[in-house]
C-alpha cells in the first residue's frame, strides 16, 4: 500500500479513537470540566501531561534544530525537561492540596486580591494563544505534507476534532484523549529511530546507538566502508570539520546565553498554566508528586531519542548528498524537492552536490543544498528506506502531538474566561450549569480563533514564542513559588513583582524582536543574554521586588498564612490558628 493510504488509515483510526474516548468521558459538572473530578490515576496523568507538553514543535522540529546546532541544541533538551524536577518538588503536590481549578484562582486566593486574578488570567490567555497558534498551523502542515489536502482544509479538520472533544469532554475528555495521543505519538517517534539505529550501529536502542560504533551494514548504508567500527559521534565530528563546520559535539554559542536560556526554559516550563493545571486532576498529594515523575519519564522517552535522531539524520543526510552527482540523488531527495523544503542549486555547474557553510542563496557561499530543518524528522523514515506504514505513522504522530497540546491550551483559555472572569469577577453568583455553558462557549470561540491563526498565520508568531516562556518564567513562577514557600509573601509584593517582571521581559523581547531587530545579536544583548533567555532575569527581578515590597507593606492576614500552612501537609490536617510561621 502507498504512503498516502497508510497515512489515511492510521490517522483515521487514531481520530476515531480520540472521538470515542471524548464521547465516553464527556463532562457533566464543572469539577469534571476543569479538573476531571480529581480522579485521574498518576500514571495516566503523567502520560496526558507528556502529550500536553510535547507539541508539534517538539515532535517535528526539535530533532532537526538539534541536528543543525550540535551541542548548543542541548538547551532545548535540558530546559524543556528540567522544569519537571521543579514541578514535582516545588509546585505539583501543593497545588493539588489547594485543590481548586485554575492558576488565576490560586493566585487570587493566595494573594487575597482580584486584581492579581485579572493579571494572571490575562497572562494565561496570552501565553496559551501564543502557543496554540503554532499548533494549529502544525496540524495544517502535517495534513498537507502527508495527506494531500490543503493546509487550510487540514486546519479545519483539526479544529472540528478539537472543538468536539474540548467542548464536550472538558478536562476529563481531554485527559483521556491525551493518553491515547501520547501512545500514538511516542510509537510514531520511536519506531523510525529504532530502525535507523539498528541499520547504522546494530544497537536497537537509539539512545545507546548514537554513542556506538558503526556496523558493516551501517558503513554500507553510508557508502563509506572506512567508517566501519568507528564511533558514530567521531565520524560525524570529522564530517562536520571536513565541511568547514565546528565539531558536532562542540558548542559555539556563548556559554552565558546557553545558561540563561536553559534556566528560562526550565522555570518557564514550571510556570506554564496548561501544565500546572494537570496537577489538579489527580486524587491525592502523593499522586501529584509521582505524576510529575511519570510525566518526565514519558517525556524523556522522546527527549532522549531526539538527540539520537539528530545525529543519525545529520550523518545520513550529509553522506547521502555531499559530493554525490545530482542525477544519482536518492529518491527521498527528489520526493521532498517537490515540497520546496529541500533543493539543489548547481552554482559551479559540475552537477555534483556540495554541502558547505552558509546559505544557498548567498553567492559567496559554496553551499549548493537547501534543507529545511523540519524534514529531519518528517523525511527520516524515507531517508532510511523504511516501510510505508512507518512513514504513515509519522503523520498520525505529528497530528497527535499538535492536537493534544492545542486541547490543553484551549482548556486554560476556556477556564480563564468562564471560571476566573465570569464566575470569579463579573457574576460571582452564577449557577454551575451556567458556568459550564460559559466554559463550553469560551472553548468553542477559542478554537475558532486558534483556527484563524492556523489559516492566516500572523508573521509574528515565531517571534512571540519567546514571550510565552519569558512571561511564564517572570510572572507565574516566582509568585506561585513564594506563595507556597513563604507565608509572609503578601499581595503588594506579588503585584509589584509580577508587574515589574512582565514589563521588563516584554520590553526586552519587544525591543529586540520588533522595535530594533537589526541589533538582535550577542554584541547588543545585556550581558550576552538573548531574548530567549531573558525570562530568568525577569524572574530574579520579580523575586527581589516581591521581597522588598513585601517587607515594607503589611503581612498577609492570619487566615492566608494558615492556608499556606495547610498546603504543606497531606491529608486532612489543618494548622491551628496559633501555629504562626
Amino acid at each position, binding site marked *: 500500500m502507498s504512503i498516502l493510504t497508510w497515512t489515511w488509515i492510521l490517522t483515521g483510526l487514531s481520530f476515531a479513537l480520540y472521538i470515542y474516548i471524548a464521547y465516553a468521558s464527556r463532562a457533566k459538572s464543572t469539577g469534571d470540566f476543569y479538573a476531571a473530578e480529581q480522579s485521574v490515576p498518576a500514571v495516566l496523568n503523567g502520560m496526558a501531561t507528556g502529550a500536553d507538553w510535547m507539541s508539534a514543535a517538539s515532535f517535528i522540529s526539535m530533532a532537526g534544530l538539534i541536528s543543525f546546532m550540535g*551541542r548548543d541544541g*542541548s538547551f532545548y*533538551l*535540558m530546559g524543556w*525537561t*528540567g522544569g*519537571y*524536577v*521543579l514541578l*514535582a*518538588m*516545588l509546585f505539583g*503536590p501543593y497545588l493539588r492540596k489547594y485543590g481548586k481549578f485554575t492558576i488565576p484562582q490560586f493566585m487570587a486566593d493566595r494573594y487575597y486580591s482580584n486584581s492579581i486574578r485579572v493579571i494572571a488570567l490575562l497572562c494565561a490567555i496570552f501565553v496559551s494563544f501564543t502557543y496554540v497558534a503554532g499548533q494549529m498551523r502544525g496540524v495544517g502542515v502535517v495534513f498537507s505534507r502527508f495527506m494531500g489536502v490543503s493546509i487550510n482544509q487540514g486546519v479545519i479538520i483539526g479544529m472540528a476534532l478539537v472543538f468536539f472533544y474540548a467542548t464536550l469532554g472538558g478536562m476529563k475528555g481531554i485527559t483521556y484523549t491525551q493518553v491515547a495521543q501520547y501512545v500514538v505519538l511516542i510509537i510514531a517517534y520511536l519506531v523510525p529511530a529504532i530502525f535507523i539505529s539498528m541499520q547504522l550501529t546494530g544497537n536497537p536502542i537509539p*539512545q*545507546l546507538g548514537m*554513542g*556506538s*560504533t558503526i556496523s558493516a551494514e551501517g558503513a554500507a548504508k553510508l557508502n563509506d566502508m572506512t567508517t566501519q567500527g568507528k*564511533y*558514530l*559521534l*567521531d565520524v560525524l565530528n570529522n564530517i562536520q570539520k571536513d565541511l568547514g563546520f565546528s565539531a558536532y*559535539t*562542540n*558548542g559555539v554559542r556563548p*556559554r552565558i546565553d*546557553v*545558561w540563561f536560556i*536553559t*534556566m528560562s526554559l*526550565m522555570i518557564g516550563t514550571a510556570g506554564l498554566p496548561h501544565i500546572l493545571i494537570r496537577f489538579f486532576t489527580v486524587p*491525592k*498529594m*502523593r499522586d501529584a*508528586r*509521582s505524576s*510529575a*515523575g511519570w510525566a*518526565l*519519564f514519558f517525556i*524523556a522517552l522522546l*527527549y*532522549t531519542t531526539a*538527540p539520537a535522531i539528530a545525529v543519525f539524520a545529520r550523518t545520513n543526510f550529509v553522506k547521502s548528498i555531499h559530493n554525490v552527482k545530482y542525477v544519482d540523488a536518492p529518491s527521498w531527495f527528489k520526493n521532498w524537492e517537490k515540497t520546496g523544503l529541500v533543493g539543489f542549486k548547481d552554482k559551479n555547474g559540475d552537477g555534483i552536490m556540495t554541502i558547505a557553510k552558509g546559505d544557498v542563496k548567498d553567492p559567496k557561499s559554496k553551499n549548493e543544498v537547501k534543507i529545511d530543518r523540519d524534514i529531519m524528522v518528517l523525511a527520516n523514515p524515507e531517508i532510511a528506506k523504511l516501510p510505508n506504514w512507518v512513514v504513515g505513522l509519522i503523520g498520525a504522530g505529528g497530528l497527535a502531538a499538535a492536537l493534544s497540546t492545542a486541547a490543553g491550551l484551549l482548556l486554560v483559555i476556556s477556564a480563564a474566561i468562564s471560571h476566573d472572569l465570569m464566575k470569579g469577577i463579573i457574576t460571582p453568583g452564577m449557577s454551575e450549569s451556567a458556568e459550564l455553558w460559559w466554559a463550553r462557549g469560551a472553548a468553542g470561540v477559542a478554537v475558532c480563533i486558534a483556527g484563524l491563526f492556523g489559516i492566516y498565520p500572523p508573521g509574528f508568531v515565531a517571534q512571540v514564542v519567546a514571550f510565552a516562556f519569558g512571561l511564564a518564567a517572570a510572572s507565574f513562577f516566582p509568585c506561585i513559588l513564594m506563595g507556597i514557600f513563604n507565608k509572609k509573601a503578601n499581595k503588594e509584593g506579588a503585584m509589584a513583582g509580577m508587574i515589574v517582571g512582565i514589563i521588563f521581559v516584554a520590553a526586552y523581547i519587544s525591543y529586540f524582536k520588533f522595535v530594533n531587530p537589526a541589533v538582535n545579536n550577542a554584541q547588543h544583548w545585556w550581558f550576552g543574554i538573548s531574548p530567549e533567555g531573558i525570562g530568568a532575569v525577569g524572574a530574579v527581578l520579580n523575586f527581589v521586588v516581591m521581597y522588598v515590597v513585601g517587607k515594607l507593606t503589611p503581612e498577609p492576614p492570619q487566615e492566608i498564612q494558615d492556608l499556606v500552612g495547610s498546603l*504543606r*501537609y*497531606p*491529608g486532612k*490536617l*489543618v*494548622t*491551628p490558628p*496559633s*501555629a504562626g510561621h
Partner: protein
Amino acid sequence: MSIHATKELQAYWKENLVIIAVHLAIWFFVSFFCGIMVVDQLDQFMIMGFPVGFWFANQGSIVIFVILITTYVYMMNNLDKKYDVHEG
C-alpha cells in the same frame, strides 16, 4: 491540635525542605554545571563513545532528572508515613 503536633508538622516541613534542597543541588550540578559550565573540560573524557560533557548536555541530565523525581517521591512517601500524615 496540640502544640506537640504542631512541632511535629514543622519538623516534617523542615525535613521536606532539606530533601528538596539536596535534590535541587544535584539538579543544578548535572545540568547547569556539568552540561554547560564545565562541558568542554568534561568533553576531554570519552565514555562508551560519548564525550562526557556532551552526554550530560544531551541525555545524562534528563536521565538523572527522572531518577531525582523518583527518589524524591520515595523519600516523601516515607516521610509522610514517619509523621503519620500519609493519605489513605
